[in-house]
């Protein structure tokens, strides 16, 4: 089997006699047997730590849960600074969690929650922060300040939590460079290894924002906005 790995500016081909291995096992094989300088990140080997997200033939996968095919092209994630080979610097990307104020406000009141209510954000809290959705999001090509799919899913996780009594902070935080900068193109959905649909969560945040009195700026400007002298 032949696979190509994008290593900095060049693409390097490897001929391997390996069958039925995960991509991570294959990369480990290359590193320990063929070329020790190959750089990639890994952790749990079981799809839960989010270390080994990369792109195969232009689609984001976790190396530990993907079985490579002959001719695959392996590349690092997009829109994050390349450190080396398949490793990118995720600091700035992860910083969007903070910008989105995606956290719970500690409450002293302990509530009983029905299994149904608990299910509301069960899927969103499955997120492993692997960055697959981030790399798949085309908005970053033109708008590097976009809060982006995983941070917005995280925001919705807390906003939708029935225990949260005050979500104004988080909702306010996702208005600028946030929910309205998403084009709803759906690219983030199929690449999520956890089956999360950030696009859907962004729509939910928009609805919630609407209920809380926020206005979609695109909508407002398409009608010339309120200050344009347009009168009913």
């Amino acid at each position: 089997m032949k696979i190509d790995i994008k290593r900095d500016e060049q693409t390097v081909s490897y001929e391997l006699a390996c069958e039925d291995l995960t991509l991570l096992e294959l990369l480990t094989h290359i590193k320990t047997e063929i070329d020790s300088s190959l750089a990639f990140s890994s952790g749990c080997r079981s799809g839960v730590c989010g270390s080994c997200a990369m792109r195969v033939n232009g689609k984001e996968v976790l190396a530990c849960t993907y079985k490579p095919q002959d001719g695959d092209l392996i590349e690092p994630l997009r829109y994050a600074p390349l450190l080396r080979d398949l490793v990118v610097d995720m600091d700035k990307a992860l910083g969007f969690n903070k910008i989105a104020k995606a956290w719970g406000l500690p409450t002293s009141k302990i509530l009983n929650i029905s299994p149904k209510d608990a299910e509301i954000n069960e899927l969103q809290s499955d997120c492993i922060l692997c960055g697959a959705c981030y790399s798949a999001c085309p908005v970053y090509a033109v708008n590097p300040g976009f809060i982006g799919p995983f941070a917005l899913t995280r925001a919705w996780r807390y906003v939708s939590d029935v225990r949260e009594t005050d979500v104004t902070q988080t909702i306010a935080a996702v208005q600028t460079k946030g929910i309205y900068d998403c084009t709803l193109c759906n690219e983030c959905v199929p690449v999520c290894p956890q089956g999360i649909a950030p696009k859907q969560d962004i729509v939910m945040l928009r609805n919630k924002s609407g209920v809380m009195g926020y206005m979609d700026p695109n909508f407002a400007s398409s009608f010339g906005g309120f200050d344009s002298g347009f009168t009913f």
Partner: protein
Amino acid sequence: MVDVLVIGAGGAGLVAALGAKESGASVKVLTKSYPTRSQTCMAQGGINAALGNASEDSVKSHYENTLKSAHGIANKKMIEKLCSEGIEAIKWLDSIGMPFSRTTEGTIAQRRLGGASAPRACYAQDYTGLKILHTLYDQCNANDIEMLSERFLLELLVEDGVVCGAKVLNIKTGEIEIHEAKSVILATGGYSRVYGKNSTNAVGSTGDGIAVAYRAGVKLSDMEFVQFHPTGLKNSSILISESARGEGGYLLNKEGKRFTDELAPRDEVSRAIYEEIEKSGEVYIDIRHLGEEFISHNLPQERKLAKLYENVDPVFELVPIKPIAHYTMGGIDVDEDAQTNIQGLFAVGECANQKVHGANRLGGNSLLELIVFGRETGKNAAKSAKENLLIPAGHSASAHVKHEDLLFDLVIKSTCKVDFYKKRDELAEQFYKNVGIKRNEQKLSNALKYLQTLKEQLPLMGVRDSNKLYNTELVDFLEFKNIIDLAEMVVSGALQREESRGAHYREDMPSENEVFEKNTIYYKNGEKLCVQLKR
């Protein structure tokens, strides 16, 4: 200079950081990967607390179960604290948005894990550790705690018996950095990767903090106690959570017959499986009778991983398993305030030995330990930092550190005649076979001899990659060196403990011996490792 420097950003490190911040200290967290990539994310089964939501339970039962499993070498006072404060710990997690699974009454759902007299483990599907870790990470963001990723711990800086910071490798740049602090918390995790591929753990569980602490003169304890999880996938060592048995899964031998109590403590189940594999060659876990809907909802990871790595679907087929290294009870010896024998240096989580697990940890108690002792350790470290007025000007850490080029030493000076990756795998096999589930004097002596040869070969090993930037071969090699040091302790302690106790089982001495109802203490004397029993 920061008040509290936390090294390690798994559950223990993040809780400690929050605890220190809450006490008014300035806090900085360093991690060798990223906070949410830590080992904690792999904990599946649950977190124990005697809430009694699923059936009657009490703190007393939790205490008794834990004490029994510890086999006489735990600190009763600390177990008491762990169990009684467990309930508060769960409430705290609930209050910061931890998405626990729920009962039909709306309370936090609980299930039974091995060695527990009641369903006591609170869980979130089989993502308990993942969701706790991420919830803590979000709280650290909320509290504006600085978290620096890709920093590999090289050395603790100690002046006149007082800790004053740490020297780390910035993996991204290849540069050495000094981080000064008034107190330091080690939360760097366990050393199960001594067993390499025969471990459930993430590749980073190489006990770096423990090895570095030892070199700085810190005492360690009970290193010989390594827990083997009964159910790792046979080929890949991927964990099949204890909840699979807790929910009613069976263990079957080659003939398809049950052969042991599935919910006995882990050490007993692991030995039973190991013996059965020696006898008949195969052991399987069978959860088919739980049904597809139940498995998909309550054990989603198990299903996914069994399909991926073993090509079997547990809904319809038996899953081949073997016991594998899972958790290390030993670690940095700490007092009841989590402080080491070096002033201002604290340790918490799997890297520390808080003496609550003793000779064998119960499932669901390690996540609990992180929360209960993590918060307190953070507070203690903050207090210690406030009281630490001893650091006069010019006495600061950076003034005393040589900024040698790490790569230069390991790349240029080494011939790389011996491939350390091969040796790493070899060591793992040696240890699984000889210092694993069933030990005896002959096996242990062989392993020790092997280690000595390995240490002699070490100067022939090195890093071939001379690129400074993001050099993962360098990191792998530094981890391997830590593993060698820790492996020597595990085998030395196991040789000295001429009895069987909990996870430490000697075929040649299969019963407990009162003489050994003590903790094993490890310390460095010159360049020599000293091992001593101490009550």
